């Protein structure tokens, strides 16, 4: 009885093992992940310093994950201990800046997308002698804060670039999807498109944390408005939902996007998405930390008192292959 059981177990194990071997995927999965550059190599021999990166990101946001990777790559090279923290709530983000001051860090990289709440504490940090760099948001206010530099994109200019391109491509009616109620950057993008394209731009509000709901909303919009021939999403996830929505609605509208992701690369290669406006988040995080190190070790500042723009850069069928492997590694 026992021997029979042992045999059965052995046979069962063999079957499972064989199935596992046969079922190996020839593509995709962990095996295709590549180590991104920048994370390995030598470390600067400058004294170890502590830098806080404080953003307004919600938890689990791909975009901010890329920013963080850039910051971490710079930190690794520069012998910096990076402390990352984030809160989408303005008052709470301001308090995180205060905690960085309390912790006596050697530098602070901060997003100023909610300047009214966060700015007082940024000024406090500068007054306490902590070098501050601003990234991603706060382009029109950062100069008054005493920060060393700004690394990001002018959302209005990015929107205008997209609007110009839409005009060149001969679009008639554009839907601009805003996926977060009251987000100033998103509003600026759609406004920039309107400035260059003209009045035939309609904003559509969706809930960005609910992708299926977003897809349904865009579908119904395309069913309702047959004249819409271009849909612009303001981040990769939303745009890909819009691609699906256009299919569902049987609409022939073309799709364009802002920002990047692995899936976005595929969509541009397939031609389901025409192009995307990239602001290079990795670079934003990298420069924000690296410039603090430069200032600490050599007194350097970047940008000559002006913003250092990391975008807009168009990625379309012609140049998508060049960034493909970086996107796959999660750094673009």
């Amino acid at each position, binding site marked *: 009885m026992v021997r029979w059981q042992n045999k059965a177990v052995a046979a069962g194990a063999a079957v499972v093992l064989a199935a596992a071997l046969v079922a190996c995927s020839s593509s995709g999965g962990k095996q295709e992940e590549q180590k991104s550059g920048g994370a390995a190599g030598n470390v600067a021999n400058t004294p170890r310093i502590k830098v806080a990166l404080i953003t307004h990101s919600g938890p689990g946001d791909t975009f901010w994950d890329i920013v963080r990777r850039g910051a971490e790559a710079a930190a690794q090279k520069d012998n910096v*201990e990076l402390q990352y923290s984030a809160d989408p709530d303005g*008052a709470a983000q301001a*308090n995180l800046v*205060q*905690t960085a001051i309390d912790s006596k860090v050697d530098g602070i990289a901060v997003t100023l997308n909610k300047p009214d*709440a966060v700015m007082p504490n940024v000024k406090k940090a500068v007054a306490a002698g902590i070098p501050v760099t601003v990234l991603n948001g706060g382009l029109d206010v950062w100069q008054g804060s005493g920060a060393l530099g700004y690394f990001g994109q002018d959302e209005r200019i990015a929107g205008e670039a997209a609007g110009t391109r839409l005009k060149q491509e001969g679009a008639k009616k554009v839907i601009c999807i805003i996926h977060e*109620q009251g987000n*100033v950057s998103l509003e600026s993008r759609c406004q920039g498109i309107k400035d260059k394209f003209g009045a035939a731009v309609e904003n559509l509000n969706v809930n960005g944390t609910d992708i299926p709901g977003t897809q349904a909303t865009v579908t119904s919009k395309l069913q309702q408005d047959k004249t819409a021939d271009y849909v612009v999403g303001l981040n990769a996830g939303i745009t890909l939902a819009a691609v699906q929505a256009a299919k569902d609605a049987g609409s022939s509208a073309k799709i364009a996007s802002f920002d990047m992701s692995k899936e976005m690369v595929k969509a541009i290669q397939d031609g389901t998405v025409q192009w995307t406006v990239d602001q290079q988040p990795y670079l934003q995080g990298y420069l924000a930390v690296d410039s603090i190190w430069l200032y600490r070790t050599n007194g350097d500042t970047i940008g000559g008192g002006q913003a250092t723009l990391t975008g807009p850069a168009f990625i379309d069928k012609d140049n998508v292959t060049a960034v493909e492997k970086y996107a796959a590694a999660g750094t673009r």
Partner: protein
Amino acid sequence: MASTITTPVAGDDRVSARSIGARLLSRPEIGSLVGALVILVFFVVTAPPFRDIDNTGTILYQAALIGVMAVPVSLLMIGGEFDLSAGVAVTTAGLTAGLFAYQFSLNVWVGVVIALVLALLIGLFNGWLLMRTGLPSFLVTLGTFFILQGLNIAVTRLASGAVASNSISDMDGFASAKAVFASEFQLGGITIKIIVVWWIVFVAIAAWVLQRTRIGNWIFAVGGDAAAARAVGVPVKRVKIGLFMTVGFFAWFAGMQLLFNSNGVVQSGEGVGKEFLYIIAAVVGGCLLTGGYGSVVGAAIGALIFGMVQLGVVYAGWNPDWFKAFLGAMLLLATIVNLVVRSKAEAR
């Protein structure tokens, strides 16, 4: 151990004096107090900046942001009701004051008063609808939550053409209002935000009302058993509407703090999800979801726990990805401790 022979206490054994220990253990906030001490020790050990007394001000401020609203929310929960619109109502109040003052070029204080009236009306509406329909407050205030969330953005866009209210920082009355709602002062090297002082004052007043006045008894009564309370002459309807209006008043106050702390600009999308943080603070502090039991002081300790954990994770330099998981575990732990302590206390 030498045993002492005690003489039996003369008198009625049904009203015998309970020992101090038993009295303490039967307080609703005792579980959260133990939890707060454990967390304090934990972070003092693991996070060096936590030991720095100068940083107490930052932690207290973080706690006050939740704590001020946890005061009326805990009263309301003891009264047996929920308010899911409390988070966005704060934003509504801030937006109202800012937009009103700006659009009509009035003294900032006029906007502040208008916002107070509106906030009280929102509370009145919630309470009235609840008593009128007999629906669960969960549903009534969920409706209000969506209405306010929508109005926040729609009205803001109509008025200012943008998604944030216009800045009122250069208008008459701004400085004095900021001094009242969002100033700070030094106290022996610690920067104390004025909202922390207000929070302590509010907790003291609310705790006194709850424990020492007839109204406090009424609140416990309507939360415990509304029908029985009505039978003995408690004005159930007035008490419940009053509780919702209290939430309205505090939402106004928190809204003013939001407005004047950020240069007179409020983002219309803020406040969503905050209502649960207020409820969490109250529950960690010993309030029951079923009503009739809890304390204001406990809710204050609950808010303090929340602030300590939120900033402790940062001060310790940990990856903030873990914060929410940590918070959830803490919440469960705190409520279980409350449960155990309460059942132990009742067994004595």
